[in-house]
């Protein structure tokens, strides 16, 4: 049996954690070791915007030790991800360089949407419970040190997800000076977060009903709830009772009572208050605390990508549905975007040998097609630039920042003149590789979009066929597609420029 030993490192706001896993087809994911080291990187960053040198030294020491531990287990592969503090620190790249120089471990920065997606995958690792849970309308509240993420699910798919920049460590740091002036710290926290939560409620929740809430977060998240039992689901009444016991205690008492280290106890109250607020906003019936960590998600994702795990849940679908929801928020024509997506993917699939792109780029193309119209919401002029900006400021769960840039650029150059390498790398800092992806996807997307120029979905179906340097598109349509054909010309020129392949249209013979 082939077993891959994998290490997932998570460098977060107040903890550097590493989990060692064994991945195999038979046992899927098996956790071997969990190591956590307390290091408040976020404290530095949220205050001064940078990592202090002392913190970095300590981080290097920890990472060196982790390297030894990995060597001890003869780890085959590892991933080290930096989260919120690395996204925010001005000297993040310097920090990463120093760690790599000192330890050989390269920390990659995880964008928020990727991080949340991985956390979300960590619950998916608990197959059965997860499937059951998300059948009903469910929310996931994921509280970290720097921010929290709220995601809503309906019927097995992700509906919306929002990041709110309030995490337990950030709240604690911000309120530190006020703490001694009140005896009701929890009220202070509540007031502090109230406005943000209200905005969320108004804009994104509406009258949506949420039956279940899944709480994700740190190891002490489940400490708050479990008490003595290992039961993972609790009722709202139980939650309220536990909440009272939490807020009625000082951090020291909490530490004693819950059996957590004293340093963590100061983070428990902010966390509990956030949970309490969401429980009240959602009027939820039951809460589920799976107790998984980001590292679980990292390993699950790795296992999925390397063929050890085949999930029953379609994660790509979550991303697509999330994109569709964004599109409908900006009143994009669903039929048109779906039609463009369909055509684009057909062309993409027929050209695999030519463009050499993979599944991930296919997904980006699909999402670009779904979102290419959303700029209309702002103004009929400058649709492409408006779309670009909307996409750049809307998080799409599961996609990295770089991937979102690709999508936004494809959308932008849908109608605008294509910018060449200098321009694109200047505008969005794309490297050569992503530049080429943008170019290829733009070429395909332009053709697909042109084929539904009238928004009438005249083309029921099409069959692409690649032969002798030509791409023949056989269209199944009974209507006159003169407009489409006419406007296709310059798109086809661009397509040829990129791929060296000429597009020909042909009507499918009617039987």
């Amino acid at each position, binding site marked *: 049996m082939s077993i891959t030993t994998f290490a997932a490192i998570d460098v977060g706001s107040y903890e550097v954690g590493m989990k060692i896993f*064994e991945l195999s087809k038979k046992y899927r994911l098996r956790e071997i*070791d969990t190591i956590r*080291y307390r290091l408040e990187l976020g404290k530095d960053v949220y205050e001064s915007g940078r990592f202090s040198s002392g913190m970095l030294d300590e981080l290097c020491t920890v990472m060196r030790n982790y390297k030894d531990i990995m060597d001890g287990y003869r780890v085959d592969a590892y991933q080290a991800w930096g989260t919120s503090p690395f996204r925010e620190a001005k000297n993040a790249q310097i920090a990463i360089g120093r760690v790599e120089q000192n330890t050989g471990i390269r920390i990659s920065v995880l964008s928020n949407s990727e991080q949340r997606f991985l956390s979300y995958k960590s619950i998916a690792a608990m197959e059965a419970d997860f499937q059951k849970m998300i059948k009903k309308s469910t929310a996931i509240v994921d509280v970290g040190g720097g921010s929290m993420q709220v995601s809503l699910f309906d019927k097995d798919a992700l509906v919306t997800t929002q990041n709110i920049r309030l995490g337990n460590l950030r709240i604690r740091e911000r309120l530190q000076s006020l703490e001694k002036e009140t005896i009701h710290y929890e009220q202070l926290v509540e007031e502090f977060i109230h406005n943000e939560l209200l905005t969320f409620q108004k804009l994104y929740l509406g009258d949506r009903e949420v039956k279940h809430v899944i709480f994700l977060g740190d190891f002490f998240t489940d400490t708050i709830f479990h008490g003595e039992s290992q039961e993972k689901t609790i009722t709202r009444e139980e939650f309220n009772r536990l909440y009272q016991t939490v807020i009625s205690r000082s951090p020291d008492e909490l530490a004693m009572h819950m059996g957590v280290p004293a340093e963590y106890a100061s983070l428990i109250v902010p966390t509990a208050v956030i949970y309490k607020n969401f429980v009240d906003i959602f009027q939820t019936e039951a809460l589920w605390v799976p107790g998984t960590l980001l590292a679980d998600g990292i390993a699950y994702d790795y296992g999925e990508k390397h063929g050890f795990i085949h999930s029953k849940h379609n994660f790509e679908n979550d991303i697509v549905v999330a994109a569709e929801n964004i599109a409908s928020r900006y009143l994009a024509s669903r039929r048109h975007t779906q039609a463009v997506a369909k055509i684009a993917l057909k062309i993409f699939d027929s050209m695999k040998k030519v463009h050499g792109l993979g599944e991930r780029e296919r997904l980006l193309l699909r999402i670009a097609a779904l979102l290419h119209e959303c700029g209309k919401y702002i103004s009929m002029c400058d649709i492409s630039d408006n779309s670009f900006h909307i996409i750049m400021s809307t998080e799409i769960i599961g996609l990295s920042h770089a991937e979102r840039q690709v999508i936004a650029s494809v959308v932008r150059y849908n109608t605008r003149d294509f910018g060449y390498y200098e321009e694109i790398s200047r505008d969005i800092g794309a490297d050569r590789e992503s530049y080429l992806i943008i170019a290829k996807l733009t070429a395909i997307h332009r053709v697909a979009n042109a084929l539904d120029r009238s928004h009438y979905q005249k083309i029921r179906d099409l069959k692409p066929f690649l032969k002798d340097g030509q791409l023949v598109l056989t269209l199944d349509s009974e209507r006159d597609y003169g407009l489409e054909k006419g406007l296709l010309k310059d798109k086809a020129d661009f397509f040829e420029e990129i791929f060296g392949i000429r597009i020909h249209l042909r009507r499918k013979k009617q039987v």
Partner: protein
Amino acid sequence: MEDKNFRKPEYYVNRELSWLLFNRRVLSEARDKTIPLFERLKFLSITSSNLDEFFMVRVASLKDQVHAQYTKTDIAGLTPKEQLKRISEDTHELVQLQYSTYNRSVYPALKKKAGLSLITQHEDLTKAQKKYVDEYFEEDIYPVVTPMAMDSSRPFPLIRNKSLNIGALISKKDRKKGKEILEFATVQVPSVLPRLIHLPADKDQEQAVILLEEVIERNIGKLFLSYDVVCAHPYRVMRNADLSIDEDEAEDLLKEIQKQLKKRQWGEVIRLEVEDKIDKRLLKVLKTEFNSKDEDIFYIQGPLDLTFLMKLYGMEGFDEFKTPAHQPAPVQEFIDKDNVFKVIQQKDVFLHHPYMSFDPVVEFVRQAAKDPDVLAIKQTLYRVSGNSPIIAALAKAAENGKQVSVLVELKARFDEENNIVWAKMLEKAGCHVIYGLVGLKTHSKITLVVRREEAGIRRYVHLGTGNYNDSTARLYTDCGLFTCDARFGEDATAVFNMLSGYSEPKFWHKLIMAPLWMKRRFLGMIEIEKKHAENGNKAYIVAKINSLCDPDIMEALYEASAAGVQIHLLVRGICCLRVGIQGVSENIHVRSIVGDFLEHSRIFYFYNNGAEDLFMGSADWMTRNLDRRVEIVFPVEDDAIKKEILHILDIEFQDNVKAHILQADGQYEKQDKRGKVLVNSQMIFSQEAKERAKALPGHQVTSRVFVPAEPVEDDA
């Protein structure tokens, strides 16, 4: 029901006084005429070394408290001053008893029965012997002794802790008649030379030995040539040696301990032992210089420092006066098996030392060091033997590229010097050495071997009640468990992560760790037993421990007893509980076994409505174990092993030979054996272990008869 106060001082015994009672139980072994003579020497020697350690650590600490004007009372309501007073009284009595045992019983028997002449006064030497010792003095002793005198220009010299010395009063020769001026001089009896000197056999062919200090005393004139020696007497001092390290300030624990070791020689003198017929003028000098109070002076009727009896025990011959050397039996499960891991994969293995051999534990580490599939070995080491095979195996493992992490407890009392040496050695070999934890002593005994197998990582764990010390494993009764249960493995990994400075795990599957979780668990389990009793169910607690003095645990036991829980305790040493108090402890039974082997295992049993929860581990029910040490207690879940351990407890409660039973008046008494079958638990276990090793099917004694092979048949 009224809330009863179980914390009344009269319900408890001071721990130091309880310890002195323990030393008395050891002494009673030396007084027991049914025990072979040389074994009795050994027990007598142990009472002496025990007492030394007791003074250096416990009495010293009380003295410190008195100096600091600390007046808080202990659990039995005594202030440090009162405790010292009681200790002094009891110790004087104990020493009296020690020397009457020596003088009246052991010493005469040596000559009469064993035909060994131990000369404790050089005047008793024969002429030939005198000649021999004088030559010995000149050739071997003289070059290594340093006589030191005190006068106005030379201050009183440093007298080393625990060293034996001869003090003398000397006066200048050829001084004109008139006033005689006495000067003080002292010479240390060299510790590099053996305390016992064998004398050439006399005509009766009787073996004879003399004590080193007697030879020096006889020749002391040769050390002060231009003086007359007026009198010379041996004396010995005990200094305050409690190693209290301020860890907050100690940047580097290792350096700090090395520094403290040097300082230990300089501590305050807390006990002065002198010969009972010492010259008064000499005594006065010592008393003044050491600043000793009357109650700290012990007048000894015999040789000082009886630990030399251990050397006497070690003399060759005299086999009929010794118990034959104990041979641990091989462990059945491992006989004829060359791979320990395969054996452990089959099932958990229980070890009961010293009845069963400690070899499998050594072999476990040794094989792990060589096994190509082993990735890592992690172990906690507290006290190890000199030249330990385990240390050697760990070093080997590191050289073989295994990841080896060793937590070396530097604070293990009196072993620091030893520990530092081999800790350095391990580090050099490439092991990751953790030098203990700041503020906590790591007392847990756990070994983890991580092995990569066909089906992935498998972890093998050894958990024990005793140290990883192959020498003491022949003398101490300890239990151990080998398992590859994944839950134990995960917990063990978490233990070492914690010991390496990483955060604690989310939860523990099986192990109970001190200082964070253990006390609460024990109190919880006692509480549950109490509830069962209150509900009218059978409720029963058994614990086998070395010491019992944690106030919270004792209070909980009193409460449980008052509620009707039957509590049976095997406490070898200190026990601050009282039994038979109306409404408090009539359901508590305490016994102490002092035998050939030092009772050392810790076993805990809770009836728990028939669930019969059984645990073993490294922790005693002492505050220091529960609150200031890293300890591990683990459950025993395998039914066969559980049965075995229950059998051990059962036999120990039947013991009527070596068991002393705590009486309501606080004294320990042996049972009346008349008309009863004698049960000596240690002997029974020894017997059982041997039978078990033999009973193994398939274990054949290799035949000594050569069997010629048959010729190979030709192909047809």
